[in-house]
């Protein structure tokens, strides 16, 4: 079974069809590239996978569980008994409702999908360490009472959070900047910090939105090596990227989008040889000139 399955995914913004009946699947342990010209709908798909948007039609399954579906209309809600009773703290009812409802982003992260952003979204005025400490947040549970009374469980958790954060800083070679403010890091480091933060949520699928954007050649190469290393540690990677060198270099399979629709899927060589892909890209270049 594939790790992530996308069926017939569609998203409309008003009259604009941003994603047009896209299907694809990500297998356990692979690096899948999602490419396409500007405005092809890549980031929209990302946002649907991570729960920021709900699809207009179609479904996404992660580890066999449905994580995205079109939102219930009011009529559907009213005719769904589990919606009426979802506020009752009764486990079977809650489970039933869980199968119908839309998951918010934080629950999708909890289920094991972590992401980075196209435009960097770091906690700018917090230190590098504090940024990464956001990752283990969803793996821990101390609440108000824990905060006030500091029971042993809470203390162990705090130690765990710091340990995890330090581990991933080490992994992304950022330990030296532990106590710097995130906004004072150079751009390339900020990108790596975002990945470190995502890894600290302990995902099974890491979704990277143009991680190489704005990096120079050297940094790009380092990034490729890092992504490989992440994959080798057992994490599946989905990658949106413009930089063809990066994509062709590390992706085992590539999905190509154009105008919201999937126009090709296959290994880098297959995709490069596909005439539709060539037109999509060359056509775009002509327009840009």
């Amino acid at each position, binding site marked *: 079974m594939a790790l992530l399955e996308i069926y017939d995914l569609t998203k409309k*913004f008003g009259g604009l069809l941003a994603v047009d009946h896209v299907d694809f699947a990500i297998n356990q342990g692979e690096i899948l590239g999602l490419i396409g010209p500007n405005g092809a709908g890549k*980031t929209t798909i990302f946002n649907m996978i991570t729960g920021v948007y709900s699809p207009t039609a179609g479904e996404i399954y992660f580890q066999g569980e449905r994580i995205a579906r079109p939102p219930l209309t009011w009529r559907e809600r009213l005719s769904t008994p589990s919606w009426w009773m979802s506020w009752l703290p009764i486990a079977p009812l809650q489970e039933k409702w869980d199968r119908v409802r839309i998951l918010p982003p934080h629950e999708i992260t909890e289920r094991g999908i972590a992401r980075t952003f*196209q435009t960097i979204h770091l906690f700018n005025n917090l230190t590098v360490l504090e940024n990464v400490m956001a990752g283990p947040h969803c793996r821990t549970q101390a609440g108000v009472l824990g905060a006030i009374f500091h029971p042993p469980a809470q203390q162990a958790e705090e130690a765990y959070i710091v340990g995890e954060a330090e581990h991933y800083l080490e992994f992304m070679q950022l330990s030296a900047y532990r106590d710097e403010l995130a906004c004072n890091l150079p751009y390339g480091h900020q990108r790596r910090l975002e990945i470190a933060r995502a890894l600290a949520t302990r995902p099974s699928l890491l979704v990277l939105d143009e991680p190489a954007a704005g990096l120079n050649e050297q940094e790009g190469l380092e990034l490729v090596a890092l992504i490989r290393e992440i994959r080798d540690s057992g994490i599946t990677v989905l990658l949106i990227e413009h930089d063809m060198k990066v994509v062709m270099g590390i992706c085992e399979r590539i999905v190509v989008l154009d105008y919201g629709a999937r126009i090709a899927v296959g290994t880098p060589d297959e995709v490069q040889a596909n005439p539709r892909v060539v037109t999509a890209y060359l056509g775009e270049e002509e327009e840009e000139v």
Partner: protein
Amino acid sequence: MQFIQQLINGLTIGAFYSLVALGYTMVYGVLKLINFSHGDLFMWGAYLGLTGLNVLLALLPQAGAWAILPVVIIVMTTVALVGVLVERVAYRPLRTAGRLAPVISALGVAFILESLARNIYGASWKTYPTGITPTGRIALGGDARVSVMQIVVLAISFLIMGALYLFVQRTRTGTAMRAVSLDHDISRLMGIDVDRIIAIVFVIGPGLGGVAGMIVALYYGSFDFTLGWTFGLKAFIAAIMGGIGNIPGAMLGGMILGIIETLGAGYISPQWKDVIAYVILIIILIFRPTGLLGERMAEKL
């Protein structure tokens, strides 16, 4: 025919709300700032109108209703000047300071204006000179009556609102205003003098507010220093109901709020009319935060 009567009264109050709401909505449009001081500028219109009328009627006792005209003009100019001054001193230095700082600054200005009014004029209720406003009533079908004053108020309000709408839609300055409300930087790149446009907004908004203050005081006959806050908050609710930043929305919102309030006072209880207004505001914000005429904002990361 109590219903029609209530409707007419509601429409009149609604017209006041609309006039004040325009000031809120225009400032929000160009600065994305809740101008808390607007209600107090409006109240100052009422106080200045009172002083102006008293002075004029003392000098020219036979002027009668004609005294209103020059006083309106003076009030409008003075309040507009104060508005521009407030913008220059309290808001412009904070243009780049994020969202919180200007709001607090606006609240601060509101307190200064209110405290000044209370200390200068005293906390007691003030009464406008009587006998200068038209008093006749025209009978409609049944028991419903519309007073001449109501007709005058409605006519003036619609005239002002129509003129403002045309100004914003048809003139170059109006177009520039709409551009500034979308994006300051791009407007500047397009050669629009953003500071000037904002200053114009702070002339028109408080100017209208000042006039509205005087009309309201003339209509009711008496008021006190809490007028600015109570009326201002209602007008702001009207602006939100219509979709803040949207000029026709402010007019519509004001009318609807006025009518709902009067009907609520008539059919439920006058004590609860303010509560009804606030609850409606909360409900609108829960289900349609952009207001009745506001566009749905596209979510974008």
